[in-house]
């Protein structure tokens, strides 16, 4: 195989991983891609992957933009829990769905705003600033629910996590729609460029007349918004808000999806499509473990191996090094 001169899109690597996983699943379990129609809606493992992966997709969207500015948001899991908890409590109190959803999202936006304030205005390291809310957010969620799992019995709300639109699951449609909207907004206007400029060199961006602090603050607000939405989707999916466990470790999944998708943690560029594929890859990996019957105690190992492989493929250093090995070995 000849070494390619032109750099190929980093999105291809997680896509290869995803395809490899699907093929592996197909070989070991022929029914993997089987989709049937049940009660007028699509039904099958791929649909499950999309439906369960929708929350991760929404989180990855917000996280991509934060990481593009050279930051990171560790608080998304806790914001999920807090937003889900608030919406659930309000629904149970009979406040009306609009108010409950609005309050949940509002809380998430406020949390994102707090992150943005700490990072952009007060100059605190993103990892520390968002760590604060990661701890406080979960505490707040437990305060809101009084430490109980709040059950939600509201079919309209449930639609957000379980509903079907024209036979298709609603949650992934929503996530996909958000991605497309974000793509159009960021790439058809200068907004995406502003974010990349801020992440690349904040000072230079400022000297060029860009309100870099505003850009930075706003991406955290947007990330908070996404986290809030993911929290509502998570609560809707299980018809309950579990303030202890909801969104636990989801921030790491989101960061993983973004990085595997080719967005560098150093900031300065972002690939929305990459994050999309990365998040899907992660969910497919989880479902693969169930599908292949990998014992849960060892499941982290194949997961880690695949993540490592995709990361190595991403790294041009690693690719060159492996290429060199093949040359020495005399492989054409």
């Amino acid at each position: 195989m000849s070494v390619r001169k032109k750099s190929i899109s980093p999105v291809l690597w997680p896509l290869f991983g995803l395809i490899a996983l699907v093929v592996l699943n197909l070989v070991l379990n022929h029914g993997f891609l089987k989709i049937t129609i049940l009660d007028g809606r699509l039904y099958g493992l791929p649909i499950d992957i999309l439906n369960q992966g929708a929350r991760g997709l929404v989180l990855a969207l917000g996280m991509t933009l934060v990481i593009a500015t050279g930051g990171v948001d560790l608080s998304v899991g806790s914001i999920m829990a807090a937003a889900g908890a608030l919406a659930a409590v309000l629904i149970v109190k009979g406040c009306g769905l609009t108010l409950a959803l609005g309050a949940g999202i509002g809380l998430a936006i406020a949390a994102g705003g707090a992150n943005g304030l700490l990072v952009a205005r007060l100059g605190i390291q993103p990892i520390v600033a968002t760590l604060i809310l990661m701890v406080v957010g979960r505490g707040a969620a437990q305060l809101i629910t009084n430490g109980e799992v709040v059950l939600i019995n509201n079919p309209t709300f449930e639609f957000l996590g379980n509903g079907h639109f024209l036979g298709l699951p609603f949650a992934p449609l929503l996530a996909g729609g958000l991605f497309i909207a974000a793509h159009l907004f960021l790439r058809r206007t200068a907004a995406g460029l502003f974010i990349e400029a801020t992440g690349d060199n904040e000072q230079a961006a400022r000297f060029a007349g860009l309100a870099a602090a505003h850009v930075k603050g706003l991406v955290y607000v947007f990330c908070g918004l996404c986290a809030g939405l993911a929290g509502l989707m998570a609560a809707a999916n299980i018809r309950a808000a579990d303030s202890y466990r909801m969104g636990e470790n989801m921030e790491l999944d989101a960061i993983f999806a973004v990085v595997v998708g080719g967005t560098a943690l150093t900031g300065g560029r972002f690939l929305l499509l990459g994050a999309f594929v990365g998040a899907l890859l992660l969910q497919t990996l989880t479902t693969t473990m169930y599908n292949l019957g990998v014992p849960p105690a060892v499941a982290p190992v194949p997961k880690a191996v695949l993540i490592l492989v995709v990361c190595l493929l991403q790294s041009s250093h690693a690719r060159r090094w492996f290429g060199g090995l093949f040359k020495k070995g005399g492989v054409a």
Partner: protein
Amino acid sequence: MLMNLKRIISLTATAFMLFTTCGLRAEGAAAKPLVVGFAQTGAESAWRTANTNSMKAEAEKRGIKLKFADGQGKQENQIRALRSFVTQGVDAIVVAPIVETGWDPVLREAKRAGIPVVVMDRNIQTDDKSLFACYIGSDFYKEGSLAAEWLVKNAGARTRIVELQGTPGSAAANVRRKAFADAIAKSPAFKLIDSQSGDFRRSGGKEVMEAFIKKHGKEIEIVYAHNDDMALGAVQAIEEAGLKPGKDIIIVSIDAIKEGVQAVVDGKINVVVECNPLFGPKVYDTIAKLKAGEPVERTSYNVDEVFDSTNAAARIGERQY
């Protein structure tokens, strides 16, 4: 130097204790409330909250003064709490240890101060058995066995089981799994066809069950979940697949949270085995015995019950958590 310091500390502690007892005696010799220090792990689950509430409510009922310390998931916090209980000279200490080891030094301090320690929920590993008075816990093994026994009696012709495990490595998941496997090994008709972890979460139970249904289809006849949250998640997955939980698929679960018992009443879960977090009465009974100098059992378990269609409706009213 160190010895001196220690002596000073212990002297002040004794002086403080004398002082407080004197002060109390001055108030009224008859009503000297028992002071118990309780080092809880944290507030990581609804079970834990119910456990904390039971300890607090029962103390209030008995006129015991409870000093509550939240460990927030860290052993160092708990050790600090224990140490402060010793210096405050409480009458007894209850600890729900976050981890099993590393307790010897602080327990030795309590022993030297003559304060009995009751270990609750999770156990402590130590070579010196005299360091704590007794252990009161949940019998995970019994819970798993009870679940299996119910199946042997009630499952009829249905035999193929999928298991929703708790968090891998946790004692509750490991022991419930082993107990169940041991018990069904005696009835060779039963077959465990798949087992995955739902991480004790409702969302996890749902996600795993969705995958199981696609993978095994109609083969699944029984679901054994290590806790109610996962079972309730599985119920949703089964319903969304167009099947009837509790009828098309038998569901067995452990914990008996209120919602779990309610699902039994509604016929969506067939049986829940209790994992009782209400330790308050038993713990304070034990402390009373210790204080009276009576012998107590070294290891004892909170009593767990089984709720199925025969008794769930009658008992749902008394579920507190």
